[in-house]
């Protein structure tokens, strides 16, 4: 397991961040951030974030990205792309959030009560196993393993969805599951070689 404890770890985190963000088409525009705050003002969930998007870039410049990676910020990003569309410097803020999600997972670093990484993991497993997202399986597994309270809360709604045929109980795996496995296997080696 990778740790994020020493000064060297934090330096490594920065190094990977810079390499990966600059690797995104147009990713180097992060240098042109003027800290105007349009991103944070546009973000529908920034009021729930420990660090708004503007502060994320400020933290990057201050060499304190580890704080962001440990915070709830990145897990509140819904990918609505408001920040990306409005940024006067053309910074792909949503893609930066994605990169930070990847780093948080790499360093296994997120707030204790944050269930988003677990939810994402179940969805990723579904896709790689069935080739499709299996909504009922996703909800059931997430509720059982992560958030039993949801079971009670969503019981009524789940029943209604089931009754109206909106919750099929079985997954519908694709034929080309082996193709997905082969594609993923090749690309996994690319990431490691990175």
């Amino acid at each position, binding site marked *: 397991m990778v740790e994020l404890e020493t000064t060297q770890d934090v330096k490594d985190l920065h190094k990977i961040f810079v390499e990966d963000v600059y690797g995104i*088409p147009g990713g180097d525009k992060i240098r042109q951030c003027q800290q105007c705050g349009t991103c944070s003002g546009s973000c*529908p*969930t920034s009021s*729930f974030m420990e660090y708004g998007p503007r502060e994320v870039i400020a933290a990057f410049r201050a060499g304190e990205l580890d704080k962001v990676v440990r915070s709830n910020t990145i*897990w*509140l990003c*819904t*990918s*609505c*792309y*408001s920040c*990306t*569309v*409005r940024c006067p410097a053309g910074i*792909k803020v*949503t893609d930066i959030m*994605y990169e930070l*999600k*990847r780093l948080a*997972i790499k360093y296994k670093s997120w707030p204790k009560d944050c*269930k*988003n990484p677990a*939810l*994402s993991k179940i*969805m*990723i497993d*579904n*896709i790689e196993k069935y*080739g*499709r*997202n299996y*909504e*009922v399986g996703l*909800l059931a597994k997430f509720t059982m393993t992560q*958030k039993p309270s*949801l079971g009670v*809360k969503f019981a009524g*709604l789940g029943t*209604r*969805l089931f009754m*109206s*045929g*909106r*919750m*099929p109980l079985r997954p*519908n795996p*694709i*034929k*080309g599951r*082996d*193709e*997905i496995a*082969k*594609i*993923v*296997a*090749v*690309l*996994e080696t*690319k990431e490691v070689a990175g």
Partner: protein
Amino acid sequence: MSLRYSYFPGCSAEATGKAYDISARVVCKKLGIDLVEIPDWNCCGATSYISIRELESFGVSARNLAIAQEMGDMDVVATCSACYTILAKTNRYLAEDDALHETINEALAAAGRSYDGSLTVRHLLDVIVNDLGCEAVSDKVARRLTKLKVAPYYGCQASRPKGTFDDPEFPVSLDRLLEAMGAEPVYYPVKTKCCGGMLMMTEEEAALRLNLELLQCARDNGADVIVTMCPLCEMNVEAYQSMVNKRFGTDFNIPVMYFTQLLGVALGVESKRLALDKQIVPVDKVLAKVPA
């Protein structure tokens, strides 16, 4: 112009968003738009996958594009806005980045496929409004929705990040289509604000607040119904109204429909074929306002 497309239904079409797929197919047939389903399509991965396994996400999305290409050079049409965004983004990044394209083709080759990057990914709304055109739709309307006030809810991912077929902040395509049906699109300044996506599962308070705003704005502007073009938006805005009510002491019971369902009503398709019975908030009040 031949209105023939390869069709990517997306995973929600098999579950919570079934009504979208059913109504989209029926309506397209009625409008002379030929949707040919991409055989054995796989999940686009949505936000969860691209945000965490980016390269793999481009890979599995490209498999869909590769299969679509084997069908000919038709545009790829998605109904779900999340699928549309992911497939379009994959397509765009492959076009912008030769090294990435090469890597992805190497992975596709292992699965016996390849993709040259030449297809175009479209949203169904774009196809109906811009390829067929609102005038052609209007000509086919059997039941003019003259008394109906509709909140046109676009959500985030149909027009963002690129705004390919409409303005990323204040799109009008859906408003125009509603007018072609004879309906009145109400002032809906939150039309591209986020529904919270998957946050309802993990960050309930934030998700409920976002939906409160969407519902309140529709009510304040006198909307009879909210019309959506994304299964995630539909689910959030419709199915969680009782949770919003419980949290904020409101009494929302606003019908929510896919734009394809309402278009079907306007085209004279019977309710059963539009899966209107799958809605959680009954749509009777909406139908009662429509001339027979």
